[in-house]
């Protein structure tokens, strides 16, 4: 186990280096930089623009820029966001946890609901329940998020003012403790509902398909033949096996917890990282974009390793290979 972990960690080093080069090139080779944006100012002159570029090292050859960036990265210095004029780490730290808060709640809700709905659908394949679930799930999936979000806002925040109209806390709120927590929860409700509805579809289908596959296996038939109760057959024998392929899926959702949901955050005016990164793209905030993308790269690699390890724990056949 330990060996596997070490081996995987060492294997991920070249992946990281490759990814860093790719991330660097993708952003720096895109036309324009943040100084280009300043050129629209009436008082700007070419000489001044060149001066600012030089101050930020943008006049250096690409390989030098990469080495400087990488060197700083290795010492934990992500650089300064040109958009916020703050260290990249502090910008990410400010906004990422807001996104994480929504994402983690959505993740939990989504897995609970999808597992229940998906498994029930599998157990009653081709029943009215199954068809209804399939229909609903596909409908929910095919809604554009902005549309569903705006609709929810119109109903629940404007017409019947049950929930607040976007934001994370009430304006000018000086609440603390539980009152503050409750305030945030009220603001969370709509984005969480929308994101859960949008994401639940595919996951339900996974659960249903996996369950259907397992139920037809010989060992399930054997379990039934032994005279076990249906409940035991389903939850002990079938479900555990059906869950195996979903481990990978689960692990791969981990980076998504931190990446933010651009459209939903915009509509619900949620101070998340997705919106900040989108602004960063338009305004060419390279340090922020590269730092954030590298963070996601690392998270993805870690999640992959985690998936492998969890697979080993859950399935002895994999562990011994």
């Amino acid at each position, binding site marked *: 186990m330990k060996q596997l972990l070490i081996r995987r960690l060492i294997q991920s080093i070249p992946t990281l280096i490759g990814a860093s080069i790719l991330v660097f090139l993708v952003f720096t080779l*895109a*036309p*324009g930089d943040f100084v*280009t*944006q*300043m*050129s*629209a*100012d*009436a*008082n*700007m*002159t*070419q*000489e*001044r623009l060149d001066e*600012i570029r030089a*101050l930020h090292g943008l006049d250096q050859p690409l390989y030098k820029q990469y080495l400087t960036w990488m060197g700083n990265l290795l010492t934990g210095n992500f650089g300064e966001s040109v*958009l*916020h*004029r*703050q260290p990249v780490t502090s910008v990410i730290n*400010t*906004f990422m946890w807001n996104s994480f808060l929504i994402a983690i709640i959505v993740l939990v809700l989504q897995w609970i609901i999808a597992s*229940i*709905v998906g498994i*029930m659908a599998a157990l009653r394949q081709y029943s009215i*329940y199954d068809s*209804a*679930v399939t*229909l*609903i799930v596909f*409908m*929910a999936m095919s*809604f554009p998020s902005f549309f*569903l*979000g705006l*609709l929810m*806002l*119109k109903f629940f*925040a*404007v017409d019947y*003012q049950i929930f*607040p*109209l*976007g*934001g994370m*806390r009430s*304006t*000018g709120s000086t609440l603390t403790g539980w009152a503050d927590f409750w305030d945030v929860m009220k603001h969370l409700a709509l984005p969480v509902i929308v994101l859960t509805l949008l994401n639940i579809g595919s996951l339900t289908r996974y659960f249903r398909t996996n369950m259907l596959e397992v139920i037809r296996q010989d060992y399930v038939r054997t379990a039934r033949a032994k005279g076990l109760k249906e409940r035991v057959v389903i939850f002990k024998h079938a479900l555990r096996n059906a869950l195996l392929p979903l481990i990978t899926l689960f692990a791969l959702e981990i980076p998504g917890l931190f990446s933010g949901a651009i459209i939903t955050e*915009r*509509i619900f*005016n*949620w*101070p998340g990282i997705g*919106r*900040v990164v989108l602004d960063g793209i*338009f*305004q*060419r905030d390279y340090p922020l974009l590269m730092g954030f993308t590298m963070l996601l790269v690392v998270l993805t690699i870690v999640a992959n390793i985690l998936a492998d390890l969890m697979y080993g724990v859950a399935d002895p056949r994999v562990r011994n290979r």
Partner: protein
Amino acid sequence: MKKRSFSLFLCSLLTGALLLSACTQPAAQPTEQNQQQPNQSEQNQQEQTKAGEKKELGYIKATDPSKVPDSAKQRTDTMVLGITDPQGIFNYWFYNTVYDRYVIEAVTERLLSVAKDATVIPGLAEKWEISDDGLTYTFHIDKRAKFSDGKPVTAEDVAFAYHVLLDPKYDGRSNLSKAKIKGEDAYKNGNATSLEGVKVIDPQTIQVQVEEANATTLLLLGTEIFVLPKHYYGKDFAKGNLEYIKSLHQKPMGSGPYILKEFIPGQEVRLVANENYWKGAPKVKNLIFKSTTAETQIQSLKTGATDFDASISVNADNVEALKELGFVDLDMLLNNGYGYIAINHKLPKFQDKRVRQALMYGLNREEVVYAYSQGYAEVIDVPQSKLSWGYPDESKLTKYSYDPEKAKQLLDEAGWKLESDGYRYKDGQKFTIQFSASTPNEVNDALIPIAVENYKELGIEFIAEQLEFNAVIDKRNKGEHEMAFLAVGLSTDPDPYGLFHSKGGSNKDAYSNPKVDELLEAGLKEFDQAKRKAIYQEAYEIINDDIPVLFMYQRYNLNTISSRLSGFVISPYKYFSESLNEVQIN
């Protein structure tokens, strides 16, 4: 059973949503269809008036102030102003976006200010003198001026601002180099520890010497300078070390009417009145700038979450929705800037003036501008704001109304002959235009289909290439573009040197006309406004005839104010945020 009922609930919810979406869709459509008249001739009339129709400019009072939502009324000592999310750089020397600037202007002040009509008026400096040779500027700081901590604003603080803005490590967007302060080079690139041209005479008086002066020098040295307390920002300050100043972006301090209390990124900025404000304490105790997004700006006003919004884009749908609210005043102003289509003058096909004029006559600009703005923009024939004192006398200008016949005639004269395939050729070259269209962009969405059709009629193939905005700018900076739609913001002074002088910093189209160069230089050297106006009249007459770019429109700007607030002073040259101390709750 429970699960089933839950999914049933979901099912009904979603089908309900679907049904509703089907119902609401038509209502959300633009009202164009509703306006269609059964009678053909009447419809034509309608079309004609529509393109020529101008929407109301100026201040539109609320129709029913009693409709102010209760939740807003309950905030008796607080106003909530909606703006697009600020980035948190609350220092004029380093900010990026106008949204940060709103906060900056609440907290800090500039040395000189501008009046509604763009004339220079006292700010922190109560008076100023310019020496006869125009090279020495003396500013006298108002004796009453105090920072929010009670300490007086002094000449040292002003000198501090000049030194930071010309520091070798300074990377903000102010460009004080243009003022050519004496000793700049020695300070920036040499060993000098201070600027030779900046002299503190006494605590209230500062003198600045420049090497070369022009009509904009006073603006650069005065209205562009925000004065920050050296005793607060100046710790560790030495040439080349701006780190401490940069660490205070989110904790600004200044002499403005409000004091920043808390900045919650992505959500709001909380400020309290500066009770010691030297022009008298502001009337509203608490001020909150709340981040709003285009999706919910109007709803926020409706539910009373905000009392004001500076970021609502002007279009028929929004204006109609706002008027329906009944309790908001609309302050509609001409934006101090204009939209235009850049033409690359390096390309031989665009070097003939007649061709450029043909491109103006041959494009139905009224239709394009109406399609983009639904009437909330004016078609222009000269690249200057209609409100500027430098705006030329229109009677001496050519008005390029849509006239395809004239355009064809001009192209014929220029030697572009129509061939049997319907396109024009000259020296075996087909007339095509590669248009670099930044996307997403509302103007391009309106422009491209009309331009393709209009120019096809002239025998020109108009090919639009969709690019991201930065890619368009990059292409143009490298001179690889043919045509691109862009917009420009103007400054307080009408001087267009940067845009149309052959050495202008923003002249990326290689436009060059010796006569224009000469006039623009003369306009800058002249200090007398009446004489400058005459010079610019001549320059704009040439530019109007010469078509360095295809002039498109000057659009409207909108500030939306709940009728429970009053006292805002807003003009194209002045943001609402400079009048916050005057605002009161009715």
